């Protein structure tokens, strides 16, 4: 863990604690660009953090960046900072940089100075609103050059945000289970409830490890050399979302089904992020096809060799 990461992480966490919450997320969903928050992250130099020093950054590594994105995800990622950081790692430039999926959709495209497209280059583009998302975050659409240049980075960004969102959902659910009383005791004392939360905790832990592992792999071998780990992270965070969101809503029952209570901000985001930049099926197929082509005899040696020096 680098010192730089600790510093940035602390800054981001403080900023999110002070200036973000359900109200910010509600504004985002109404299509209001979080200008004040973005101004703060820019003032801290965060969007360019992954760029080289000559380009105005601090050359933050992918593994450290992932830790920052997890923190963003914990807070529901009220600003598209993760996307902008990843885009700037390819092509540093001033302002908010959107990150387009291969089909030309990009979160907050309408607010972007430029967008990193599938060809790996920045473009200025006119965006129109895209398809509705469970998160109501503005996913906008533009006609852009196709290609997969952003696919791996986008999958990593989204699985990192999911790892954070999953943690937040678990914490909220455990806290609720400790305070909500029925039959004269906290519902968390019922095994039928606590066993579900324990299972969810296993998935949350797995998601965190899968994402950290992907960040480490990219830091070591570049995005291209970490396709397996990134794909695995997207698969595991996607699978974890299915279980953890289901458990969280079951434990919260009716209150969690409302707009008023804030559980939905995170679960709806998890459901949106798991479809961004390739869902579980997409990535599992890629990983699986590559492994089947290598054959059963290589499957274990390939896995074991991944982090051997």
């Amino acid at each position, binding site marked *: 863990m680098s010192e730089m990461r600790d510093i940035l992480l602390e800054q981001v966490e403080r900023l999110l604690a002070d200036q973000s919450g359900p109200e910010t997320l509600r504004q985002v969903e109404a299509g209001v660009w979080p200008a004040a928050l973005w101004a703060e992250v820019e003032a801290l130099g965060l969007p360019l953090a992954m760029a080289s020093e000559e380009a105005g950054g601090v050359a933050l590594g992918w593994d450290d960046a992932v830790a920052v994105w997890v923190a963003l995800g914990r807070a529901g990622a009220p600003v598209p900072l993760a996307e902008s950081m990843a885009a700037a790692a390819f092509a540093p430039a001033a302002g908010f940089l959107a990150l387009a999926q291969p089909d030309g959709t990009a979160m907050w495209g309408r607010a972007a100075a430029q967008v990193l497209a599938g060809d790996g280059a920045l473009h200025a583009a006119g965006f129109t609103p895209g398809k509705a998302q469970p998160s109501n975050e503005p996913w906008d659409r533009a006609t852009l050059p196709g290609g997969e240049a952003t696919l791996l980075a986008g999958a990593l960004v989204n699985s990192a945000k999911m790892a954070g969102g999953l943690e937040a959902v678990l914490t909220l659910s455990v806290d609720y289970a400790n305070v909500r009383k029925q039959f004269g005791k906290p519902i968390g004392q019922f095994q039928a409830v606590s066993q579900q939360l324990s299972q969810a905790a296993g998935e949350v832990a*797995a998601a965190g*490890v899968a994402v950290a592992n992907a960040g480490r792999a990219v830091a070591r071998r570049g995005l291209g050399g970490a396709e397996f780990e990134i794909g695995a992270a997207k698969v595991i965070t996607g699978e974890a979302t299915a279980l953890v969101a289901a458990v969280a809503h079951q434990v919260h029952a009716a209150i969690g089904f409302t707009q008023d209570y804030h559980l939905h901000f995170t679960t709806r985001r998890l459901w949106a992020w798991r479809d961004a930049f390739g869902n579980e*099926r997409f990535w599992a*197929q890629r990983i699986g096809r590559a492994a089947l082509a290598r054959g*059963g005899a290589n499957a274990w040696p390939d896995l074991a060799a991944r982090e051997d020096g």
Partner: protein
Amino acid sequence: MVGLRFDLRDTPPEAPALRAELRAFLAEAGRHWSPRVRAYSWMAFDRDFSREVGKRGWIGMTWPAAYGGGERSFLERYVTLEEMLAVGAPVGAHWIGDRQSGPLILRLGTEEQRREFIPRIVSGELAFAIGLSEPDSGSDLASLRTRAEKVPGGYRLNGRKVWTTNAHRCDFAITLLRTSPAPDPKLKHQGLTQLLVDLRASGIEIRPILDLAGEEGFNEITFDNVFVPDSLLIGVEGKGWEQATSELAFERSGPERYLSSLPLLTAAMDSLHDEPAAPEAVGRMLARANTLRQMSLSVAGMLQDGEAPAREAALIKDVGNDFEQALPDRIRALYAGPMPDDVAEMQTTMNMVARSYSLRGGTREILRGIIARQLGLR
């Protein structure tokens, strides 16, 4: 996450060379292992194989050289374990001694016990069983009743242990016994003591029990006035519960808690090229295997640092058991027609053996209870 830490670890620098050595050995040794043997893996007992493993220095790898140990790192040991499990090696004759009994004797045993037992565990000569469960005490282990009554020069044992894996093939069992009655049911953890029991001692009857797949995998042991000398007391009389539960981080954290069924995945892959559902299914399984491996390595790293990550171990065992237990069914679901013979043999056996994954070493429900407490559910 909520007090549970899984910091990433690297495999040790020695890993590539060690793996090459292990793979060459396992390829040769494994030429005649049947799919059924591989399906049992760390419950499969093969003393000759364990002696060969011992000869190569792969038992007691982290233990002091004074007792024949290898003084290598926990992570090197980890590499050795995972290479054995990945091919379904029949490691049952040395697994328990290496994982639990040896470390226990080194930590709490007398100098005499260390000299007596450790070198012979290292060489693969001595096989250990775990004598915890009883007919009326499973998950509620502390309720156990088998008595060890103090007599001049030792203890006299009466009662029964059950489900003791491979006891009829082993030399010794580390047992947990009641040396004094619990003062009241709430204090049942008191008065328990760990004794090393020579399974050939007079008064012991070991009756193998057929498991559902048709193997004599475990046993019922009856103790009828069995004398155990004082020299086989482990640690302190009356401290058995604390001692036994401190083994749990070792017992639950290893790669055998997620890898038990991996040999089936790799065996099946080559017959699945034309199956349209295979890439996704295989991809999901490999994604999970890789993630569990990183979690498991993380726990091995904590053991290396001298920590006792019992709660992390419970969590990885739970997530790992789910994965390894579901695998045989997921493989089966990929075949519309018959599986190739060797895959079918392994799948059929493993599907039965897999029922035990979420039972042995603490059931799923017990593990989730431990995790719940760690989460702060009160």
